[in-house]
């Protein structure tokens, strides 16, 4: 989306100009009352300066187009960009005020490199947790060197989309999901390639990897033979994001949902690259679902749906989620539930999903690192309280283990537990 400000900014006085003119007026009045010329001599530059500053500024509205991008890894977000346009040599007095993403901390202050018609800027922030956010374009204005008059700089100001999620999720796409449900309208692919279902044997190429050589067939025939595989979907995945408010503290719920959304975004983005067929459902008061599919168009639809998922006003009953999903999806699909539900344990969606035939895997973002002490306890008691909260959470999650594997997501910048589980789904307990 490109936002263009409709009109260039008009010239306006700053607070400092009003200060000078006010003081100049007081001095002029004092000169008249005292019948002394000295205050008038002092007042003269103060009264004139705002007009002089405006006269030597840019004589028409300024326009400059913004192009910018986000860099950095993990929690570090480095934004670099440039404002380019005819500035008439006034680029040195251009002020840029970036809008930081919510909750972020400045790690690298704004740095500007100015030339005649181009101003380049760089600023760094540290994000508190995984985030999908739209960073608003920086505010740009010209201000004269005395700081008495200013003018908005208009032009193209595209917002910047920032996605930050745990780094392990980038590797999730290489994990092969076993469970593929044949849908009535599915047409199996007959393309062959290096991975997928076994298709047949062929002569090995000179640079064939050793791992693909079929040694038994090679021994029988006396020449190098390699395996061929049918390239097809590697599995189905239904991702369910729980957007119900749970704890009573709506701000905390919104924060938890914010980084849960970022995690889901990362998982889905990675799995789409490995041809996994993905369905997405958000459960608030009701279920909003996108069907199982793959491809670029579906990827955009799903990612857009994840970005726009918001905390619902009312929490729907957990069984409604499971029953509704049956209307959209066939049972048996691997179901990844991302839920930070901390309310009534009987409202956990996982047992209901299991009963309706969806094998679930729960990722539970932990609210504990976000909770701060009330200050009523001393350090030792605070530590004890935290341990008790942790124990209570572990007990609650252990109940859920009866129905599904659980990934306790308490280090917000790591989902190693999920990646480990997906690599060895039956052997490892996830912590």
């Amino acid at each position: 989306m490109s936002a263009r400000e409709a009109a260039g900014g008009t010239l306006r006085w700053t607070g400092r100009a009003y200060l000078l003119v006010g003081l100049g007026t007081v001095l002029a009045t004092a000169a008249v009352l005292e019948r002394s010329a000295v205050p008038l001599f002092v007042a003269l530059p103060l009264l004139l300066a705002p007009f002089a500053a405006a006269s030597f500024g840019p004589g028409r509205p300024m326009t400059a187009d913004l192009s910018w991008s986000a860099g950095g890894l993990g929690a570090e977000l480095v934004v670099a960009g440039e404002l380019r346009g005819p500035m008439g040599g006034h680029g040195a007095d251009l002020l840029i005020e970036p809008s930081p993403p919510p909750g972020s901390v400045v790690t690298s202050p704004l740095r500007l490199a100015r030339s005649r018609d181009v101003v380049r800027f760089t600023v760094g922030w540290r994000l508190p947790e995984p985030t999908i956010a739209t960073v608003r374009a920086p505010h740009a204005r010209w201000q004269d060197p005395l700081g008495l008059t200013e003018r908005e700089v208009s032009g193209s100001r595209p917002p910047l989309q920032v996605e930050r999620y745990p780094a392990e999720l980038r590797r999730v796409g290489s994990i092969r999901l076993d469970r593929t449900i044949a849908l009535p309208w599915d047409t199996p692919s007959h393309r062959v390639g290096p991975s997928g279902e076994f298709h047949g044997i062929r002569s090995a190429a000179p640079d064939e990897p050793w791992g693909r050589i079929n040694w038994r067939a090679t021994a029988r025939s006396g020449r190098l033979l390699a395996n061929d595989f049918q390239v097809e979907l590697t599995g189905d995945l239904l991702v369910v994001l729980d957007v119900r408010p749970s704890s009573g503290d709506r701000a905390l719920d919104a924060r938890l949902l914010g980084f849960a959304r970022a995690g889901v975004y990362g998982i889905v983005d990675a799995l789409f690259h490995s041809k996994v067929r993905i369905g997405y459902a958000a459960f608030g008061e009701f279920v909003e679902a996108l069907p199982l599919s793959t491809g670029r168009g579906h990827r955009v639809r799903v990612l857009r749906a994840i970005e726009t998922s918001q905390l619902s006003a009312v929490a729907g009953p957990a069984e409604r989620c499971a029953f509704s999903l049956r209307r959209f999806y066939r049972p048996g699909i691997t179901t990844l539930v991302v839920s930070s539900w901390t309310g009534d344990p009987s409202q956990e969606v996982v047992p209901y999903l299991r009963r309706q035939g969806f094998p679930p895997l729960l990722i539970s973002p932990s609210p504990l690192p976000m909770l701060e002490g009330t200050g009523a306890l001393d350090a030792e008691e605070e530590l004890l309280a935290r341990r008790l909260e942790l124990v209570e959470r572990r007990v609650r999650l252990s109940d859920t283990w009866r129905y599904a594997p659980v990934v306790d997501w308490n280090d917000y910048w790591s989902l190693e537990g999920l990646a480990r589980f997906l690599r060895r789904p039956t052997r490892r307990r996830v912590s």
Partner: protein
Amino acid sequence: MSASFAEGRRGGNKLTFTVAAVALGLFGLVGGLPDLLGPAIGIGGLAVAAWARRRGPLGTEYGALPALVGLLVLATTAPTVASAELFGGLSALAVLLWVADDPARPAGGGRRAALPLASCGLAVGIAWSVALVLPHPSQEVGLAGGLLASVLLVLAYFLVREAERRASSSASA
């Protein structure tokens, strides 16, 4: 801390501070306050202002207030003599020069503000030199000349604004 403040330098240019301090000190010496009270008020106000304008965005915007108040005190207590008039005008210009050298802004603010400051200085120069040269009954002519220069500058400003308004309205049409 605003981003534009973070962009700036930690301190201002010491040269502009010195120029403003010397001008205010001289204005205080020729003023009507006893002994060193005048220079103390002038330089003290400037020092407080220099401290205040490093205190974040609000200080950057209004930090010059203590220096201007010091200037006001010195101006209202000064006797009507040519030297006080000269140093009064110069002090105001020097304070403006120091204001232009804002630590929250890129270096060289004083240099970039040379043209606006020169036009203000011209008005003060005309007023003072005419007041000095002409005999006592005609000193008002000097002030009138300074005020005339000021009015011309204001007029030029409004003419520029009008031309700009016409250009933007024709562009939008």
